[in-house]
């Protein structure tokens, strides 16, 4: 038995606040309109509180050499046992309120693909740190054997490349620390709707934590009636102004949102485990064992490419980018923003051994340009045919689609490149932005070659590489021969790695 404990008593205070907040509405109605709502509020309140107290009293976690065991429940009992070598990640999160009370939520992730497997809400920070220390100390036996066997799976000298335990487990290496200017750039170049989502999420989080319930409906209605009373030209001006204001607002809020979300971001390496800490309002701390990294991507939107900055993200087994929670919380981000060359220089910290890889970049097939051009022609014909009976000869303007698509094809081809090294496999693609992805071949689960109609005519194929986490990596427009060769090489390596895993 290495550690044993309960939730922190201050959790009851948190639950009390939640219960009060949830019952605020019936309470207000009870006071102002109908008195019997008070009874409902009281019953609900007592039930919620009772449930929380029961949960608090019954929840107990035990950490042994082999497993983390969490027992809880009075009527509905639950006994969860998680083997230590199945634990992928241990994350901490604490909102303002929890931080004020010295608490942290502990999240245990396994490779089940469901993300968070168990949630301890909440432990005292001391207990949480202790749990992590003990867990990290207990794990290397299992985790590192897994990684060495994965390494020796690939041929020869690869085992020396991937051996992570050469480093002292107690020394912490600071890999990256985000400066304010980097975060400012991240915010200002966050030109997607996602920016609104991030800020919206941050704002919602804040409002939620402070318990603010805003009532803006009457303001919106009065605004609409005011707009309807204006002449059209003024309305246009107002709309243009609004559009500009919204865009400016978007940039400002996304900047603020990113500053808040990734405040004081730092990435450290301790032994074989990467650790991220960040956040102003809600602080997050997440560990990511390097042996679990399935893929690392360096992403540049066109604006960031112009400025020479990039985001580094990592997929781990079990974590899924598809989950809104993951992306909104910034869980998959390893480095929120850094200079492009620095991002590439930092790759070995996440994928040990990649520094010995000499990537010989191969271009995609130039036929890809012809393929996109033909798509453009087909689209132009369709668009012309569809709009002819309404527009007449003016419909021929859709012929402009052809050069446009050709240019797209040229751009795509120029940015496309792939490379297969000894133990890694890399890809870069983009149209005006640029994305780089690197996958350890030992992590490959399956490889699919796909040919569409035009692909069959031109002898082109797409190659999709599946790993255990995140979305699949797809290389478009290889020649069918290259695709098949690559498929064969990758799967042979993957099978060898899997054989060594056993």
């Amino acid at each position, binding site marked *: 038995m290495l550690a044993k404990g309960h939730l922190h008593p201050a959790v009851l205070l948190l639950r009390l606040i939640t219960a009060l907040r949830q019952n605020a509405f019936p309470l207000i109605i009870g006071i102002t309109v109908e008195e019997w709502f008070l009874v409902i509020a009281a019953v609900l309140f007592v039930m919620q509180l009772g449930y929380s107290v029961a949960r608090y009293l019954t929840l107990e976690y035990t950490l042994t050499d082999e497993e983390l065991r969490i027992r809880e429940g009075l009527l509905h009992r639950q006994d969860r046992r998680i083997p230590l070598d199945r634990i992928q990640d241990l994350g901490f999160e604490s909102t303002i309120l929890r931080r004020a009370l010295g608490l942290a939520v502990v999240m245990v992730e396994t*490779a089940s*693909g469901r993300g968070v497997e168990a949630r301890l809400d909440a432990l005292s920070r001391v207990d949480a740190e202790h749990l992590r220390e003990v867990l990290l100390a207990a794990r290397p036996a299992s985790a590192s054997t897994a990684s060495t066997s994965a390494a020796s799976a690939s041929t020869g000298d690869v085992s020396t490349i991937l051996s992570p335990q050469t480093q002292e487990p107690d020394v912490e290496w600071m890999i990256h620390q985000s400066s304010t200017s980097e975060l400012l750039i991240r915010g200002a170049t966050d030109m997607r709707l996602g920016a609104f989502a991030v800020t919206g999420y941050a704002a919602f989080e804040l409002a939620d934590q402070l318990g603010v319930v805003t009532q803006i409906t009457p303001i919106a209605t009065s605004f609409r009636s005011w707009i309807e009373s204006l002449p059209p030209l003024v309305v246009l001006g107002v709309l243009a102004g609004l559009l500009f204001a919204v865009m400016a607002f978007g940039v400002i809020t996304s900047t603020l949102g990113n500053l808040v979300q990734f405040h004081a971001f730092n990435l450290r390496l301790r032994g074989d485990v990467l650790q991220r800490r960040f956040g102003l309002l809600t602080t997050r701390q997440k560990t990511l064992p390097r042996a679990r990294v399935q893929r690392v991507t360096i992403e540049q939107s066109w604006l960031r490419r112009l400025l020479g900055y990039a985001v580094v993200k990592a997929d781990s*087994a079990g974590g*899924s980018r*598809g989950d809104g929670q993951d992306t909104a919380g910034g869980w998959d981000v390893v480095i929120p923003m850094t200079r492009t060359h620095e991002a590439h220089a930092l790759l070995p910290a996440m994928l040990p051994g990649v520094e010995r890889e000499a990537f010989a970049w191969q271009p995609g097939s130039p036929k890809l340009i012809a393929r996109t051009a033909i798509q453009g022609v087909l689209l132009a014909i369709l668009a012309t045919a569809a709009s002819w009976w309404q527009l007449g000869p003016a419909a021929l303007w859709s012929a402009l689609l052809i050069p446009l698509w050709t240019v797209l094809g040229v751009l795509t081809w120029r940015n496309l490149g792939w490379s297969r090294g000894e133990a890694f496999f890399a890809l870069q693609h983009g149209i005006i932005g640029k994305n780089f992805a690197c996958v350890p071949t030992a992590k*490959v*689960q*399956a*490889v*699919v*070659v*796909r*040919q*569409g*109609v035009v*692909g*069959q005519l031109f002898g082109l194929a797409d190659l*999709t590489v*599946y*790993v*255990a*986490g*995140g*979305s*699949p990596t797809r290389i478009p427009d290889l020649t069918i*021969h290259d695709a*098949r*060769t690559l*498929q*064969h*090489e990758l*799967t*042979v390596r*993957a*099978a060898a790695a*899997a*054989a060594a*895993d*056993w």
Partner: protein
Amino acid sequence: MTSAESLHPPNRLAPRVVPYWIIGDGLTSIVVAALAWWPGRDYLADHWQQWSPLWDNILLGLCAGMLALALLVPPLNYVRWRYGFVGDMLLMRYGILFVEERAVPVRRMQHVDLSRGPIERLFGLATLVVFTAGNEGSAFRVPGLPAQLAKELRDRIVQMRGDGRL
């Protein structure tokens, strides 16, 4: 092994998968086409002012097209489908318009399922479904296997994973 050639999966599906596909998948479109022609056409001709022989022909063409697809796609699919074990890999190759070639190392399979629908059972067929780790695109299906063979394949996969040899 020369790389590109060794990835050709050797086996075909059971030929009776063709009638199964026609009945299982094609039946819906056959029924839809028939319904569109018989009560559908009469109803439209009676109630829609602009009904003309041109529309008759268009509808007839559509129905004929659907029928032809329902009858033609399964045999074509059968001709294109190949699967098989090469070394310790399960290979699949299929598709008419979109051709897919899939390769899954047996060691990477997390679990194996056999699924048999009601019509599938009538034909004595089964679908082998293998899953790899991960959440996106982690299921690989081989349809139209004789039930006995499917069971053998499943046992073989389990055995290969167990002792590491074929």
